[in-house]
C-alpha cells in the first residue's frame, strides 16, 4: 500500500529562500512557469543522467583503472 503522500501527484520539498529567489530570477523569460517546474526539470535531468550512465569513467580514468586492474591480474 503506498503511503498517503505517495498517492498525491505532487508533494512539497523545502529549499532555502535565497535559492528560491535565484531560481525565480533565472527562469524569467524562459518557458518555465514556476520555480517548482524548473526544479522538477533539473532533478529529472540529474536522475536520468545517473541512471543512463553505464560507465562514469572518462577515457583517461578508465585507462588508469584498467592499468591498475592489469597490475592486479584481473585483466589480461
Amino acid at each position, binding site marked *: 500500500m503506498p503511503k498517503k503522500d505517495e498517492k498525491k501527484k505532487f508533494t512539497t520539498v523545502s529549499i532555502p529562500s535565497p535559492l528560491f529567489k535565484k531560481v525565480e530570477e533565472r527562469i524569467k523569460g524562459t518557458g518555465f512557469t514556476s520555480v517548482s517546474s524548473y526544479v522538477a526539470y533539473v532533478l529529472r535531468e540529474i536522475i536520468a543522467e545517473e541512471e543512463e550512465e553505464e*560507465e*562514469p569513467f572518462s577515457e583517461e*580514468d578508465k585507462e*588508469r*583503472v584498467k592499468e591498475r586492474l592489469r*597490475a592486479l591480474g584481473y585483466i*589480461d
Partner: protein
Amino acid sequence: MGKRVLVIGLDCAPPELLFDLFADELPNIKRMLDNGVYARMESSHPPITIPAWMVMATSKNAGKLGVYGFRHRKPGTYNKMWLANSHSIREKTVWDILGEHNKKVVVVGVPPAYPPKPVNGSQISCFMTPGADKDYTYPQRLKKEIERLIGEYLLDIVFRTDEKDKLLQQLYDMTKQHFTVLKYLAKTKPWHFFMFVEIGVDRVHHAFWKFFDKKHHLYEPDNKYEDVILNYYRLVDREIGKLLELTDDNTSVILVSDHGAKSMKGAFCINQWLAENGYLTFKKIPPQGSSLAEADIDWAKTQVWGWGGYHARIFFNVKGREPQGVIEPENYESFREQVISDLKVIQGPNSEKWNTKVYTPEEIYPDGIGDYPDLTVYFDDLNWRSAGTLGYDSYYLSENDKGPDDAVHSQKGVFIYYDPKRDAGGERIKDLSLLDFAPTVLKVIGVPTPKDMEGKIIKEVT
C-alpha cells in the same frame, strides 16, 4: 531500541586461517570467536571481490545484479569491455535501506564504490577509484577532512612485484592509514551501521602465500617472508581492537570476508588450449605473452575464446550475436555441451585428474541480466587460475602470466558475529551464504527485511 552494527570486511580472509591456524595469535578476533557465533560463508559465482561484496550488501545473486566481475564484455564485441562501478549496482544495498529508515551509515571501501553515491551519512570509495585526485567521498567535503587527517588517501597497492620489502612497507602504510581514517569516522560521525572493507588482506595473500604455505609448490623452508601473512593479520587484529574500543555495548560486530584463499598450483592458458583443440584460430602465431587483443585472431574461423582471471570466462562466437559469428544459434546448446565435456576432462600437467567445474548461465544466474559469459569455468576447483595470454610452449604455467601471484580464491569466506552483551559460547554453526548477510544486519538493527532479498536471517545471531 535496535542495535548498532559494525562490519569488519577483510577481503579474501579464509576460514582456515581465521578460525584455526591464526586464531590463537589474534586476541581480538579470538574474543569474537570465543563469545560469538561463526561459520563459513559460501561466496558468489564467481568468488571474486566484484561481485561478492555487492552480493553480500544487496542479498541478490550476481545474475540479478548483472555484475560478473571487474570487467564485462561489451555485447557484440570481441575485446571491448566496460568496468564495474557504483552505478552498475541498481539493487538497494543494506545501507541504502537503512538510510531510508533514517539510520545513519558510514561505508568505506566496499567495492565497487566509485563514483561515491549519496548515502545517509558518509562514504569513501574503493580501490576501483581512478586516483586520489578524484572525488572519492560522499559528501564531497569529506575528502578535505580525510586529507587534513592523513594526507593523500591510499586506495591500493600494486602487489605483483618482486620488490617484496617495498611492497610490505606500502601494505603496512596503507592499512595503518585506513584504520586511522576508520577510527576518525567512528568517533566523529553519527552511525547505526558502519562497514569497511580492507583490501590489504587480499593483497598480502596474493603477494606472500608461497612463503607461508608449506603445501605451495614454490614454498622454500625458512625463508625471510615466512611470517609476513601472520604478522599482517596481527596488525589487522590490533587495529580491530582499537576500533572496538570506540564502540559501545550496544554495538554488535560482524566480521566477514567475500571469499577465501588457497595456494595457486599454476595458471592454465585457456586460449592456447582452445587454439590447439580447434576452437580458436590465429592468422599469425602470436608471440609469447600476447593478450587476446594483441593476437591476430581469425574470428571468422573461431568458435570460442576465453578470458583469464582466478576463473575463466568463456565466450562463444555466435552468428547474429557476434560481428563474425560462426556458431548457428540452433546449434548453440549442442555445441555448448561439447565444449563443457571437453573442458571437464582437461588434466593437469602430469596427467593428474582435475576437478574442473563448468557452469552455464542458467545454472548459476537463473535470472541473470546484462553481460554474462557463455560459460564460467573453475579449473581444478580454482586451484589453477586461468591465463588469457598466449604463445607459450605449454598450456601450464607454474607461475602467473602477469607478474608474481601465489594465491587463488576459494569458495568459502568467513562470518563471525559478536554481541558484547551476550555470550553465545563460540558456537560454530553450519555454512552460510553471502546472501544471508544483509537480512541479518537489518534484523539486528531492527529494520524490516525486504521480501526480495534472497538470503535468510541467521537465526543464531538474533
